């Protein structure tokens, strides 16, 4: 199966079903920090849970408080298993770095052209390696 490489923003390993969002997302105001569901009624994926997914988004936008939401998701255990960003974003990555400093389990964040993921169907099980390689998990 396909294999794509991303630039490692936060190193780590994780896997889960692919959730590809076509619209950018602001974690603050856009994601519930406890449940991990998309909370912005104007977002096309309103109500979808990002918890445990390999979340692919074109970019993270909006408030600088998004790193705090990332930290809370890690603390609550409702964070994505990995995040693939079309544009590098220091704000989300920082939430993971701080979480690791506080002893929470971290997640990998990669920068990659998310268009390259179109070969993977929505919901397919993906695995992200510490080196930033995304592969379809063998079933």
């Amino acid at each position, binding site marked *: 199966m396909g294999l794509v490489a991303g630039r490692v923003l936060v190193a780590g390993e994780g896997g889960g079903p692919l959730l590809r969002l076509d619209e950018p997302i602001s974690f603050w105001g856009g994601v519930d920090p406890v449940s991990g569901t998309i909370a912005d009624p104007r977002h096309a994926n309103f109500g979808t849970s990002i918890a445990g997914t390999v979340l692919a988004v074109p970019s993270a936008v*909006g408030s600088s408080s998004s790193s705090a939401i990332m930290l809370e998701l890690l603390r609550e255990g409702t964070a994505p298993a990995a995040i693939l960003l079309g544009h590098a974003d220091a704000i989300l990555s*920082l939430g993971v770095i701080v979480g690791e400093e506080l002893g*929470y389990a971290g997640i990998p964040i990669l920068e990659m052209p998310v268009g390259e993921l179109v070969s993977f169907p929505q919901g397919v099980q993906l695995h992200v390696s510490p080196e930033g390689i995304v592969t379809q998990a063998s079933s």
Partner: protein
Amino acid sequence: MTLELTDYERSLIGGSQGDATAMAMRILVSAAELVGAGELVEIRSAHIDGCLHHGDGGVEFAERLADGGGRVAVDTTLNVGALDLLHPDKVRAGAHKTAMARRQMDAYVRMGAEPTFTCAPYQIGHLPDVGEQVAWGESNAIAFVNSVLGARTERYGDFLDACCALTGRAPLHGLHLEENRAATVVVDASHVPSELKARDVFYPVLGTWLGLEVGRDIAAIVGLPAATTRDQLKALGAAAASTGAVALFHVVGVTPEAATLDAATHGQVPGRTVALTAEMLRGSLARLSTAGQGGRVDAVAVGSPHFSIGEFEHLVRLVSGRRLAVPFYACTARGTLLALEEQGDAEVLREAGVEIIVDTCVVVTPILPASGGVLMTNSGKFAHYGPSNTGYEVLYGSLEDCVDSAVAGRALSSPEVWAW
């Protein structure tokens, strides 16, 4: 690029200034490597956006630093918290959340930051000079300090701004560097009717469009009046930073790095030019309301970013001698409230039925009546975040429309101002 640290910076990691500063430096170094900075830059001030309680992780972070003896190394103001400390009964929150929110705010004050609790520190005297290196959090404050004041910050998240404040350093990258501050997109507003451009209600709509259309590119807006006010630029930037990752925009003839279009683009040919049309503005205007026109209004909220003295004086003129029929909240800094009390305006506002909220705002803290309904606002940022954060439908309008609607208890609008 490899990050090079000075001997002093390396000593911080080694704990020369204590455990908290060492932790702050470790996080700062990780962040600097993440963005590919070659070195750190000394900063003159910081604005920390970490006081707002999103959950207990933020409290744990702040207390880890405060308990570790952390002290800010530069002048530092604090963003809003999740409580109105001067009027605690106005916030509906459980005992646990209230206690944790308080602990989070206290931890930053223990580290020596000023208890300003405002998202608009630039309105209470935190005014860096043009070209000054700073580290600010809070998206509207970032847009303002870069664009309107001409100081230099990147978009710092809740935690990195605190790490910068404790170490007095920031990663030297992005908008800290002169070459990255050039406009690459020209937005031509010269065809927008001047009557519309003279109105405050235009600027959040322009900002909403800018954030969606231009995003992380840097725009030079031409054709705005030389008399465009700081409050209008504040509203533009706040809306733009809500719908897009806008951290810097230039307004030719108005903002400090844009005396001319050539200055704003650093003499380079812009990548593209977009002429604003009536359709573009109508689309952004429509996006700011989720409730229908002409229906009921259950509450009004203004002051995102926090209301300035000038905006309050405008509000005083509008509400004097009138009685508001629905709850009307005006959010501001405690320092601004003090000035309002001294000049007698706070009394006039309260008599009309305006509730003045300080240290926080109604979109980040449960203050609005729990019954829900339609929230009217003149703020692009409230309109953007209101539905997801409060559960209210939102209706966007001018401050005049907000007051008229609050008096009538139903939505009144002035569509004629948008005639083009």
